[in-house]
C-alpha cells in the first residue's frame, strides 16, 4: 500500500499538539475518514487529527509527514511496526515507548526522543534534544532495546538510565551522556561533555575522541575488544562509517563509575 501522507493545514504556534495517534499501528487498518477521526489533544481540548492535518491515503503501515512538525509531540509513540518518515523537525517524545518499526526524521528531534523505547529504529538526520533514549523522571530504566541513530549533536543526559539497546551519535554530546546507565551501548563519534557515564552501573560508552573522565573511572588496559569489530561492522549496515583505524585499532578501557556498581566501561581510542 502507498504511504499515508499527513500535511499540516496551518503552521502550529503556541500550544503544541499531542498526537500519539500518528502511529502505523493505528493507520494500518483504517480508512482515510477513520484516520482523520483519530483523537489528538491541543492543550486541554480534544480534537480530531483531521482538524490539523490533511490526510491522503489509507490502510498503510507507512506514514509520511510533511514537516516541519516541531510542535507535534508523541509522534510514533508506542508504535510496534511500520515506518514513519518526517520530512523536517519533530516535536518532543517522538518514538517514546516504541517497540518496533522505524522512524526517520529528516530534521531535528526535540527532547525525550525514544525515551524508554523497547525496540525498533529511530534515525535522526539532524540534532536531538535532552534525554534521548533516557528514562522519564521517576522511572527506573530508560531505553530497553532498539536503536537510536543521531547524525547530529545531542543535548544533556542522553541515554540516562539506559537498560539495553544502542545509541549512536555521530556529532557531539553535551553533559551527562549515559548517566546512571544500567546496561546497553552508546557510541559517540564527536566530543563528549562533562561527567560522561556519571553514576553508570554497567554498559558501554564508546567515545571516538578523548574525553575528560570523572575521577571515579579507573584505567584497566589498552586492548582490541572483538566486540567493537562486531559493533562497527553492524554500524555499516546503518550507513555509519567508523573513522579509519577504529576497527583494527587499540582502545583504552576504563571501568566505573566506582561511586556506584562500577561495572560500566568507557572505551577511548589509544
Amino acid at each position, binding site marked *: 500500500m502507498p504511504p499515508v501522507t499527513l500535511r499540516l493545514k496551518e503552521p502550529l504556534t503556541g500550544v503544541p499538539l499531542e498526537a500519539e495517534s500518528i502511529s502505523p499501528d493505528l493507520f494500518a487498518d483504517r480508512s482515510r475518514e477513520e484516520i482523520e477521526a483519530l483523537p489528538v489533544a491541543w492543550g486541554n481540548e480534544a480534537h480530531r487529527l483531521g482538524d490539523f492535518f490533511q490526510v491522503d491515503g489509507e490502510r498503510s503501515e507507512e506514514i509520511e509527514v510533511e514537516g516541519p512538525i516541531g510542535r507535534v509531540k508523541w509522534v510514533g509513540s508506542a508504535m510496534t511496526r511500520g515506518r514513519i518518515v518526517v520530512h523536517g523537525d519533530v516535536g518532543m517524545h517522538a518514538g517514546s515507548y516504541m517497540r518496533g518499526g522505524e522512524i526517520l526524521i529528516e530534521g531535528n528531534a526535540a527532547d525525550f526522543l525514544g525515551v524508554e523505547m523497547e525496540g525498533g529504529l529511530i534515525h535522526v538526520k539532524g540534532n536531538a534534544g535532552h534525554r534521548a533514549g533516557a528514562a522519564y523522571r521517576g522511572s527506573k530504566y530508560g531505553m530497553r*532495546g532498539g536503536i537510536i541513530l543521531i547524525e547530529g549533536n545531542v543535548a544533556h543526559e542522553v541515554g540516562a538510565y539506559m537498560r539495553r539497546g544502542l545509541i549512536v551519535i555521530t556529532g557531539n554530546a553535551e553533559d551527562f551522556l549515559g548517566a546512571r546507565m544500567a546496561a546497553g551501548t552508546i557510541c559517540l563519534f564527536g566530543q563528549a561533555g562533562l561527567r560522561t557515564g556519571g553514576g553508570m552501573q554497567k554498559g558501554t560508552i564508546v567515545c571516538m575522541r578523548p574525553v575528560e573522565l570523572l575521577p571515579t573511572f579507573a584505567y584497566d588496559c589498552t*586492548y582490541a*575488544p*572483538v566486540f567493537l569489530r562486531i559493533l562497527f561492522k*553492524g554500524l555499516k549496515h546503518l550507513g555509519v562509517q567508523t573513522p579509519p583505524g577504529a*576497527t583494527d585499532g587499540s582502545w583504552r578501557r576504563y571501568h566505573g563509575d566506582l561511586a556506584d556498581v562500577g561495572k560500566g566501561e568507557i572505551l577511548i581510542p589509544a
Partner: protein
Amino acid sequence: MEINGVPIDETYAEAFTMHASRVLITAFSKQWALEAARSMAGFGTSVIGCGCEVGIEGVEPEQTPDDRPGVNVLLFAPSKKAVQEHLIKRIGQSVMTSPTSACYNDLEAEDRLSVGGKLRFFGDGYQISKRLEPPIVGNGNRARRFWRIPVMDGEFVVEDRFGVQKAVAGGNFLLLGNELPDALQAAERAVEAMRKVNGVIMPFPGGIVRSGSKVGSRYKFLNASTNTAFCPSLRRQVQSELPDGVAAVLEIVIDGLTAEAVAEAMRVGIRAACGPGIVKVSAGNYGGKLGKHQFHLHQLLAN
C-alpha cells in the same frame, strides 16, 4: 552401472537422523581459527565412541561477524540436548582456550540452544552481555546476544544461542581397491571433491575410515564390531562381500545438514574416486531396518 570403468554396486547407504549445529570460529589469523577448529573437532569421529561427530566444513564462510578470518565447524549428536552438551564442552575447552578466538552461531534454525549463556559463567561476574538488534546484525527479525568473557588475552566473544536442526549422519560409500595405495589415493580424491560441498563433513581422520563397523558383536558388552564382510584378511573365514583382487577397502562417512547435501557429497565423491585401481564401489547398510535415509548409489549417480 560403471563410472570410469569402475562397477557401482546396486546397493544403498543407510543413514540416520541426528541433530546438528554449525559453529563459526574466528581468530586473529586463519591459522589460529583453524587451530581452534581442529581442537574442537578432535575426537569427534563417531557417535558410537565420541558421543558426537564433529568436523571442519570445507567450504569457508564468505563473511564473519567480526570481519576476521573464520572457519565453520559442524557438530552432530543424537539429540538437541546432546548437541548442547557437546557444544558447551567443546567450545568451552577448545575454542575459548584458543588465543584470539571468538565463536558465533552460523545456523539459522527455529530451535536454538543456550551455549554462550552457559559459558558466560566462566566470567565470574565480569562477563558482559551485548544484544544487537536485527538492523545491525542482519539476522532477519532476530536480535543476537553476544557474551564478552574476560580472558587473559583480552576478551572471548561467544554467541548466546546456537541454532540446531535435524540433520543426516552416516551417509557412506566403500572403495574396494586392488591395493591399499590405490584405495587411499581414490579416497583422497573423493574427500577433496566432497569438501567443496556446502553443509557436509567427513568426520573421520582425513575424511577416511578404515575400520568400518557392523552392528553387534559376539561380545555382549560391545554393540558394534569390525565389518568382517569387508575385511580382506577374513575373506575365507566369513561370508565376504569382497570380490577377487580386492586387497583393501576404505570407507568415507558423510554427515550433512540435509539429505540433499549428503547425496551431493556422495555423488561428487564417488565420481572423483572412480579410477585406476578401484575394483568396485559399494555402500554400507543395515538392511534398511535402522536408518531413516537411504541413498541408492545408482539413483544418485544417474542424476
